[in-house]
C-alpha cells in the first residue's frame, strides 16, 4: 500500500522534546514566513508569560521552551494557539526595536575570489553585482550554526544560485558568502560550499565583550564597499555603524 507522508498546513504547532513547542510558519525559505516568525516571537516576549523559559527563531519558526516539571505542555500549547489565531502573522510588518548595521566590506579579488563567477551566474558584471549588494538592505533572518552568525536575506530571485558541490577548504572569519538568495558573514574560519564574494572585519561573536552577540534576528544590514587596504583589522565592529531603526 502506498504510504504518502502528511502534507502539513501552516502555521502549525509541533512538540520539540519534552519541554518545547515549535511554531512553524512554513517549510521553505520564505520572507513572509520569516517576518511572521520574528513578529510572533516578539509578541510572545512582550506577553512575558511566566511559564516561558526561552524563545528563539529560526528561518521560519519560533521555538518556545518551558520547564515540563512545572508547566503543563498542553496549557501552553493552547495559549500559543490562541495567540496565533489573533492575527494574520504572515501579513505582519516587522517588530519594533530593530537596528540598521552598515558594515564595510571588501568585495572581489583576494577578498572575495568567487565574485566574478557569482556575478556571471546572476547576469551582472562584477561592479554591477557590488552595486546591487551594497544597495539592497538585507535582514538578519536568523542566527545560527556558529554563535552570532547571521543568515541574511532575502536577495532578489536572480540570486538563487546553488551552493558549490565541492567545499572551499577554508574561508576566514568575517568572510561574506552568498547562495540560495542569502548572505552569511562567518563567525569563524570554516570550510563552506557557499560562494566567497567579500571580506568584512565584523566580529559576529565576541565572547569577552559586553555585547557578545552584536546582531539580533530582524536587524537590517547594509554593506559599504571599501578596498581591502581600508578594511580595519578583524574584530569588534570592524568599522560598522549601528543605528536604531524608527
Amino acid at each position, binding site marked *: 500500500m502506498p504510504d504518502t507522508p502528511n502534507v502539513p498546513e501552516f502555521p502549525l504547532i509541533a*512538540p520539540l522534546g519534552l519541554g518545547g513547542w515549535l511554531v512553524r510558519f512554513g517549510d521553505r525559505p520564505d520572507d513572509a514566513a520569516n517576518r511572521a516568525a520574528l513578529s510572533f516571537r516578539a509578541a510572545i516576549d512582550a506577553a512575558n508569560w511566566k511559564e516561558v523559559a526561552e524563545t528563539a527563531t529560526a528561518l521560519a519558526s519560533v521555538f518556545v521552551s518551558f520547564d515540563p516539571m512545572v508547566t503543563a505542555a498542553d496549557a501552553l500549547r493552547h495559549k500559543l494557539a490562541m495567540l496565533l489565531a489573533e492575527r494574520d502573522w504572515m501579513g505582519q510588518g516587522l517588530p519594533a526595536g530593530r537596528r540598521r548595521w552598515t558594515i564595510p566590506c571588501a568585495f572581489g579579488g583576494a577578498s572575495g575570489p568567487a565574485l566574478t563567477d557569482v556575478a556571471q551566474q546572476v547576469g551582472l558584471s562584477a561592479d554591477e553585482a557590488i552595486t546591487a549588494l551594497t544597495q539592497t538592505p538585507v535582514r538578519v533572518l536568523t542566527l545560527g550554526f556558529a554563535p552570532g552568525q547571521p543568515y541574511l536575506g532575502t536577495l532578489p530571485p536572480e540570486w538563487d544560485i546553488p551552493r558549490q558541490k565541492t567545499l572551499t577548504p577554508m574561508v576566514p572569519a568575517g568572510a561574506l558568502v552568498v547562495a540560495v538568495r542569502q548572505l552569511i558573514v562567518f563567525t569563524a574560519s570554516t570550510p563552506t560550499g557557499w560562494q566567497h564574494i567579500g571580506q568584512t572585519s565584523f566580529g559576529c561573536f565576541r565572547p569577552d565583550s559586553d555585547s557578545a552577540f552584536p546582531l539580533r534576528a530582524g536587524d537590517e544590514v547594509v554593506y559599504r564597499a571599501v578596498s581591502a587596504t581600508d578594511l580595519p583589522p578583524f574584530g569588534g565592529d570592524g568599522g560598522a555603524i549601528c543605528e536604531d531603526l524608527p
Partner: protein
Amino acid sequence: MTPALKLIAVGPHVTVQDTGRLRTLAFGLSRGGAADRYALAEGAALLGQAADLAVLELAGMGGTFMARGAFCVALTGAVMSAEIDGTPVLWNACHMLQDGQTLCIGPARHGSYGYLSVGGGFLTPTLLGARSMNPVAGVGTPLEAGDCLPVGGGGRSGLRLEPVARFGSGTLRVLPGPQTDLFTKDMLSRFSETTFRRDPRSNRQGARLAQDSDGFSAKGGLSVLSDIIVPGDIQITGDGTPFVLMPDGWRLSAARVGFAMRSCAGRTGRTHRRIALPVCGPG
C-alpha cells in the same frame, strides 16, 4: 589559600560543565552543559550540594589531578578507575582530597563521559551566564596540563550511591518531533526495529548511530529547512545516518525523525534498539 585542582595530565576533551546557559539559543549558541545530567545530579547528591554547580567532564579519557588545599571530590558518570596517591578508590562515591594529594583517573570502562565534582563546585569564570565550556564554538579555551581550577570548598566524603542504570545496551524511547511526518510509516517502523551502535565518531555535538542495514531518508531529504534543534533531537544526515544531538549540537539542514528521551551516553559499541512511543500527538 583558595582551594584549587591542578591538572597534571588530561585528555583532549576535558571541559568544565554545569547545567548550561539559557537565552543564548536565539543567538545561535546551544545551551550546552554536562552531557550526562544524571552524573551531575549524582555528584551533587554525594557531596550534599546544589546540582547546578560546575564540574569537570572527562570525555572517554581520565587524567591526573593534584589538590591545592583540602576539599572533597565525587566521581560519577562513565565508570573509570581511580586512585588517590596510588590507593584505589570507589567510583560513584565521594572522597576527601588532602592538600598535595594526587587523584589519578583511568579511561572509561562503561559509558562515555565521566565526571569529577568538587565540594562547592569549580569557580572558573562565568561565560555568558554559565561556566559550561564549548571550545568548538569559541566559548572558553580548551583545558590543558598546568591549568589550576579554583574550587569552592566544603562538601563531604565517605558516601557512595547506586547510580541510575544507563551505560549498557537498551531501548531508547522516542517521541515524535516536528518532522517525523516527513518519514513514511514503513521507514519509521524499520527505524524502530533497527539495532544501533553508538559510533566512536561521536562528540558533544552529536552521537552517531551506526547500523548494518540501509540508511534512512525523508521525503525532501537534503532540502529540509534548517530549524531550531535541542539535545535529544534525532537527525538524519544526507547519507542516511541518524545522529542524536548532544548539548553542544547546532542547527543542521537535516530531517529529524524524532526525539530521544534520554541522552545517548551509552558506551561505544553497545547497542541501542529504539521504539517509537507516541506520547504527544503532532500539533
